[in-house]
C-alpha cells in the first residue's frame, strides 16, 4: 500500500481528533466519578444534620404541642358525641296520649333506644299511643312489647321500644 504525504496528514489529523474524543470520554468518566463522590459526601452530611434535628424534633417541646393538638382533635370528636337527653324526653312527652302514663323510661346509648314501661286503662288507648309514636318524626321505629292486664285495677301495663333516628 502506497500513501501520499497528503493521505498521511489526513490520517494523522483524524487520529488526533479521535484521541481528543477518547480523552473527553475519559474526562467525562473521571468527572462523573468525582461528582458522584461529592454528592455522596453532601448527602451524608445532610443526613447527619437531619438526624440531629430529628432528635430535637422528638423533644419535650414537640410533645407538649402534640399533646394539645391531640386534645383539640379529640374534643372535636367528643363534642359531636354529646347529646342533650332532655330532647329525647321532650319527644316522648310530646307523643304521650291522654290516658297513658309512664312507670319507667330507659335510654341506652349503645342501641340509641328508649324503652318505656307504660300504663293505660284500655287497649284503644294503647293503640292510639303506638300510632302517636309512629307519627313522631323523632323515632325511626316503634316496637310494642308485652301487655299485662291487672284484673283488680283494670289497668294495662305495656312496654314500648323506640329507636331514635
Amino acid at each position, binding site marked *: *500500500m502506497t500513501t501520499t504525504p497528503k493521505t*498521511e496528514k489526513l*490520517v*494523522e489529523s*483524524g*487520529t488526533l481528533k*479521535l484521541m481528543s*474524543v*477518547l480523552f473527553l*470520554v*475519559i474526562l*467525562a*468518566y473521571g468527572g*462523573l*466519578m468525582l*461528582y*458522584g463522590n461529592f*454528592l*455522596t459526601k*453532601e*448527602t451524608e452530611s*445532610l*443526613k447527619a*444534620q*437531619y438526624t440531629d434535628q*430529628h432528635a*430535637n*424534633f*422528638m423533644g419535650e*417541646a*414537640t*410533645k*407538649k*404541642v*402534640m*399533646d*394539645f*393538638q*391531640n*386534645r*383539640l382533635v*379529640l*374534643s372535636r370528636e*367528643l*363534642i359531636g*358525641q*354529646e*347529646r*342533650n*337527653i*332532655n330532647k329525647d*324526653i321532650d319527644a316522648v312527652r310530646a307523643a304521650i296520649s291522654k290516658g297513658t302514663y*309512664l*312507670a*319507667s*323510661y*330507659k*335510654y341506652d*346509648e349503645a342501641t340509641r333506644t328508649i324503652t318505656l*314501661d307504660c300504663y293505660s286503662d284500655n287497649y284503644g288507648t294503647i293503640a292510639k299511643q303506638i300510632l302517636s309514636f309512629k307519627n313522631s318524626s323523632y323515632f325511626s321505629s316503634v316496637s310494642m312489647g308485652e301487655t299485662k292486664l291487672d284484673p283488680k285495677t283494670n289497668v294495662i301495663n305495656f312496654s314500648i321500644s323506640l329507636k331514635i333516628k
Partner: protein
Amino acid sequence: MKLKLLLAPSIIILSIVLLIWGVYPAYTNGIDGAKEKYQALEKQKEMTASLLARLDNVKKLGSALDNDASGKNVIFNYIPQSKEDEKVIENLNFLAMKNSLAVLNISLSEPVDTLALATTPANGASSQTAGTPVKKVTPKKLIANFSVFGSYENMRVLLDNLSKMKRFNKISILEMKSTRKEDQSLSENLQMNIGLEFDYLLNNYNLTDEDINNDVFVGGAFDKKIVDEIVKSKNVDVNNVLPGEIGTNNPFLLQ
C-alpha cells in the same frame, strides 16, 4: 502507516466501550450513579428543609400555647390529663344538691378495654410524605353510676346541667322510674339512675416519625374553633375539691 491506520478504529472501539461500560453507568445505573445520587441528595435536602420548617413551627406553636392560657384551660378542663375522680364525685353531688335532689348512689369504675392508645405503626424517616393519616388517640374512660331521687322537673334541670358541664361527659344509660308512697299510691318523686362516661387523656403520648407530617406542624397554627364552641355551649363549671380538715386520733371514730 499500517499501525496508524489500525489506531483509528481501535480508538473508536475503545471510546464506545468506555461510553457504554464506564461513562453511562457512572451517570446512571439505577442504584448509585451520579443521577441517582443527585436525586437522593435533593430528597435529603427537601426532608431536612421541611424538618427545619417543622421545628420552627414547633417553637411558634409552643409560644402560642404559652400565650393562650384561657384556651388551654378550656381544653384541659374538657379533656383532663387524669381521671380526676374526686372532682366527678364532688360535682355530681353538688349538681344534685343544687337541684334539690337526694343522692342515692355515686360509684365510679374504669373499663379495662381502654388502657392503651390506639396507634398505627411508625414509618421510617425516608418514607415520610405530606398528608400521612393522623394517628388516632383514644381517651381513657371513667364510668360513673349516679342515682338520685326527687322531682321530674329538677331531674330535667340536672340533665341540662350535665350536658352543659365544662368537662366532657356522655350519658350511656338513663333510667327514670316512678316510685310509690307507703300507701302504695304513686309518688310525685322519681328515681333516676344515670350511667355517665367521663373521658380523660393521659399526657404520655409517644412521638413517631409520622407526627412530622401532622397538620399542626405543617401549618404552624392550632385550629381553635372547638375552643369557642366549648365556651359557647358549656357554662357549668367543674368545681375543684378542697381537702378540708385532716388528721385524727382514732380513725374508727367520726369526728
